């Protein structure tokens, strides 16, 4: 099984140094791309590879890049922004790629910037990732010194400056256009679309925003070709995926596996199954803003298309496991408290609705709920659905709630009838 993203990642947790990456053939691809390929060639290769965005939405990276005008004279300034805000609860994959394999990301950003003809690129990094910051700043300095960044890279005539920007903590900084506002020093409130960032993004210029894992895949596609990349996955969606598991499993962690690996295999074979004394009930496939998958459904392939018929989605691919000793109402309450707190307050359904949902869940969990409360919760899953709010935050927040109300109906009813949480003595 090929593992391009993590094959050089060292078990002791240390970072891959520039010299070791170069020795392993890394950065060679930069010579090939900058000297032998046109920006359009790069875009076409990545399009053909079917690299789908690993930030959660699964949009084709090559297609996104092709929205940037090829007319460099008409639009001389354009930007690439790497979304390294990773704040989705239960998600810890980008951290690994930045802390231990910074040059792979930098190489991906050089190629992507070249493809969209950007001369400036930013890594928008979550404030909490202190180690990532140190590692990235050092790696960028090394890359400048070695001539992979800066003016006239490797004598190709192409210039690129790369900056690290650390944020100050808000989930909305991860939302594509909220991120652009944050980078401009404003509140991280999303922008109206259209115009999409490809037309008017950072400082009003054409901009591409891509996730860390998406960009880290790019050097491998250009090195080995679109056909090779597609063959890595078990389904039609190209490549491998960095899957994670957290919760009461024997061996929580991250594994790079072919895209489309069944959920059960990831939990049983890689995460080692449940900790002794705990039973598997359900899981969120890819972070807090995805719908529950029940134990009986876990043979589903973990890719973008296969989870849709189960009314869920791949999201970030980091699985959060719900065991039999954790109260599902408390679980959902924890998520909705997060979403309520992180609402940017711009639009009414989200600003007013999420705190209401949170309060109701709290009162049910504390034994003060009524059956009519379930109707109010259900009402919100429609009221905050896609199309009713300004951005995807509130719809995302409704995903674990709407599926939880169905799958854990009996548990909700028990809280209400018994007037306390059955999981708390």
């Amino acid at each position: 099984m090929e593992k391009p993203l993590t094959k050089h990642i060292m078990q002791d947790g240390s970072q891959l140094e520039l010299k070791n990456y170069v020795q392993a053939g890394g950065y060679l691809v930069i010579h090939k791309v900058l000297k032998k390929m046109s920006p359009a060639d790069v875009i076409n290769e990545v399009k053909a590879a079917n690299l789908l965005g690993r930030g959660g939405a699964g949009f084709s990276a090559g297609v996104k890049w092709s929205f940037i005008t090829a007319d460099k004279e008409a639009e001389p300034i354009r930007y690439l922004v790497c979304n390294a805000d990773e704040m989705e609860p239960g998600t810890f994959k980008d951290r690994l790629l930045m802390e231990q394999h910074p040059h792979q990301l930098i190489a991906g950003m050089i190629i992507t910037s070249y493809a969209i003809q950007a001369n400036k690129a930013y890594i928008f990094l979550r404030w909490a990732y202190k180690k990532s910051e140190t590692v990235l700043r050092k790696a960028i300095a090394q890359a400048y010194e070695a001539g992979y960044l800066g003016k006239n890279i490797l004598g190709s005539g192409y210039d690129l400056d790369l900056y690290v920007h650390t944020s100050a903590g808000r989930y909305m900084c991860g939302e594509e256009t909220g991120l652009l506002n944050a980078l401009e020093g404003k509140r991280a409130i999303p922008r109206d679309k259209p115009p999409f960032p490809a037309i008017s993004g950072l400082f009003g210029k054409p901009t591409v925003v891509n996730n860390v894992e998406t960009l880290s895949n790019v050097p491998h596609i250009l090195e080995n070709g679109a056909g090779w990349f597609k063959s890595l996955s078990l389904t039609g969606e190209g490549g491998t995926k960095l899957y994670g598991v957290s919760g009461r499993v024997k061996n929580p962690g991250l594994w790079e596996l072919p895209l489309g690996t069944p959920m059960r295999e990831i939990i049983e074979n890689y995460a080692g199954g449940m900790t002794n004394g705990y039973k598997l009930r359900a899981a969120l496939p890819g972070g807090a803003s995805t719908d529950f998958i029940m134990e009986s459904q876990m043979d589903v392939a973990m890719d973008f298309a296969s989870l849709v018929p189960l009314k869920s989605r791949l999201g970030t691919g980091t699985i959060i496991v719900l065991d039999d000793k954790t109260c599902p109402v408390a679980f959902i309450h924890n998520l909705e408290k997060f979403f309520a707190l992180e609402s940017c307050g711009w639009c009414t359904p989200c600003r007013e609705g999420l705190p209401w949902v949170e309060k109701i869940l709290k009162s049910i969990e504390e034994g003060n709920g009524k059956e009519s409360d379930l109707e109010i919760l259900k009402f919100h899953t429609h009221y905050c659905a896609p199309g009713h709010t300004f951005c995807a935050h509130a719809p995302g927040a409704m995903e674990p709630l709407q599926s939880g109300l169905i799958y854990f109906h009996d548990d909700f009813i028990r809280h209400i009838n018994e007037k306390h949480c059955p999981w708390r003595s």
Partner: protein
Amino acid sequence: MLTEKEKYEILDEAKLYPYPSAACLDALKIVQHRRGWITDESVSDIAALLSLSTEHVDGVATFYSRIYRHEVGRHVILICDGISCMIMGYEPVYEYIAEKLGIRFGETTSDKRFTLLPVSCLGDCDHAPSMMINNDLYNDLTLEKIDHLLEKYV
């Protein structure tokens, strides 16, 4: 009043952007780094330096969780209350620390040594429960570990 050094650092950061007002958040971080938190006076000073309204700067300052508009202690303890840490038991960790320091979330010890705050998922879910003290991450927390950890911060 901003010090000369603060002004220099802020204006230096502002050079990275097409216009200086984009350095608003950087300015808040620079001042907070030196003074621990952001006072009303600092908000006005930053606004004046970057030609922004005080309302704009305060709007930015109050939006972000890691900009403090209230005084905090010398060390800030951030306990992750994300979903994976909930499953793995952040609550006993919180109760233990709260009891030991005599403060709840949002409070500061009377000697101004510690402020205790919740923080959303730290992206360290395979080593839950986790917390940060200032810039340092601690994970796979057990109650035994905590006493020893707090001693390092005087």
